């Protein structure tokens, strides 16, 4: 999902770029050279210089291509709030989601509870705004929406419905998906689910 953030960001700014798919079981020379510290994707390479870590790269994109579609607001306090919520998503969503698809029994029940708590905090922050950014799609929306294509996998593994628990969040996600740049950048939810099922086999969960 972290790569998807960059794809949406670049699309929003109307920037052309070359996309190189990595096989994470067999990382390329280029990836290891461009991100020697973490050896992770996504990596944005601009004029031969790498920018790593998706939230950092999104801010970089926002600052370089600053004439159109700003992601962060201009007011310092609003910016601090946007960074706070993107940071919250980074700290909580991935691990909470991972625990849902990779556990069973009592562990799964606990994972579901924690996952939904995270979603409820985010739903409360969204409130009645159309987007986390207010009237327009912004930094926090960008940080969060890629997780939406994993919801189907989480729901199927955990046997629950996000919409039943957090209807406003699903309404927000649908609103984001109406944007072509978002819809075309997200992975297909069925493919994500099949990928998760494969992982569950490999980890011996199923």
């Amino acid at each position: 999902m972290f790569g998807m953030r960059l794809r949406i960001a670049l699309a929003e700014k109307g920037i052309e770029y070359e996309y190189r798919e990595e096989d994470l079981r067999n990382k390329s020379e280029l990836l290891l050279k461009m991100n020697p510290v973490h050896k992770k994707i996504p990596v944005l390479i601009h004029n031969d210089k790498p920018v790593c870590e998706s939230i950092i790269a999104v801010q970089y994109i926002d600052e370089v291509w600053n004439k159109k579609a700003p992601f962060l607001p201009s007011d310092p306090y609003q910016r601090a709030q946007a960074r706070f919520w993107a940071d919250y998503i980074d700290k909580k969503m991935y691990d909470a989601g991972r625990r849902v698809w990779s556990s069973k029994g009592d562990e799964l029940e606990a994972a579901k509870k924690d996952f939904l708590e995270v979603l409820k905090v985010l739903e409360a922050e969204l409130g009645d705004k159309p987007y986390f950014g207010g009237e327009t799609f912004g930094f926090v929306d960008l940080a969060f929406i890629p997780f939406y294509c994993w919801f189907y996998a989480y729901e199927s593994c955990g046997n629950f419905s996000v919409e039943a628990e957090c209807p406003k969040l699903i309404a927000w996600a649908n609103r984001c998906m109406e944007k072509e740049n978002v819809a075309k950048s997200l992975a297909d939810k069925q493919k994500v689910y099949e990928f998760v099922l494969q992982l569950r086999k490999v980890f011996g969960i199923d």
Partner: protein
Amino acid sequence: MAGATSDLKLLGVGPSPYVNRVQIALNLKSVNYEFLEEKLGSKSELLLKSNPVHKKIPALIHGDKPVCESLIIVQYIDEVWTSGPSILPSDTYDRALHRFWAAYIDDKFFPNVKELRTADGEEAKEAAVERIAEGMALLEDALAKCGKGKPFFGGDNIGYVDIAFGSHLGWLKAAEKLAGVTLFNKAKTPRLVAWADAFSSHEAVKDVIPETEKLVELAKMLKARAQSQSAN
């Protein structure tokens, strides 16, 4: 110059490197503020109200609006008080580089230092020291690249990465004493050794980071307290 002191409050505790970051940033900008010391082991109403999500310090309250998460607060300070020296560099790529290294320090480097403090047995201790040494080598390199040969990651003056990393110097030195190891090796990481001295003696820093001896005592007290709590 900022408004009245009552306009700006910092909730925190003296020995927290995350709180120290905010203090250093405010000192750099010559901004006055009121320091509200939280009691160790308990959280005030004001803190719970200002940071309901994480319930952690530091929390900076500007007017009546709270800003949380130390690095986010530092960026906020940099963006509000623009007449003081800049904390983040002006070049966009350099900014991304600084943010990268600050994130590395929080996500990878300092958890290793914490592990050293709590390591049980020689093997675990040695493994932790090894990992820290690897991190120090990376940071030695980063200092050369970010600082472009100057004394600080920020160049001639202290900047974002200096604050992110330097705020941990007190606890790094305490960890050396507690574990009986040397983490700052002049032969292996000469730039960092010089940097540590320069950072610690900087005007904006020298009265902020607690003395190593005090942190060693605090660590011993916290460990004793944790052990007695688990025994009960």
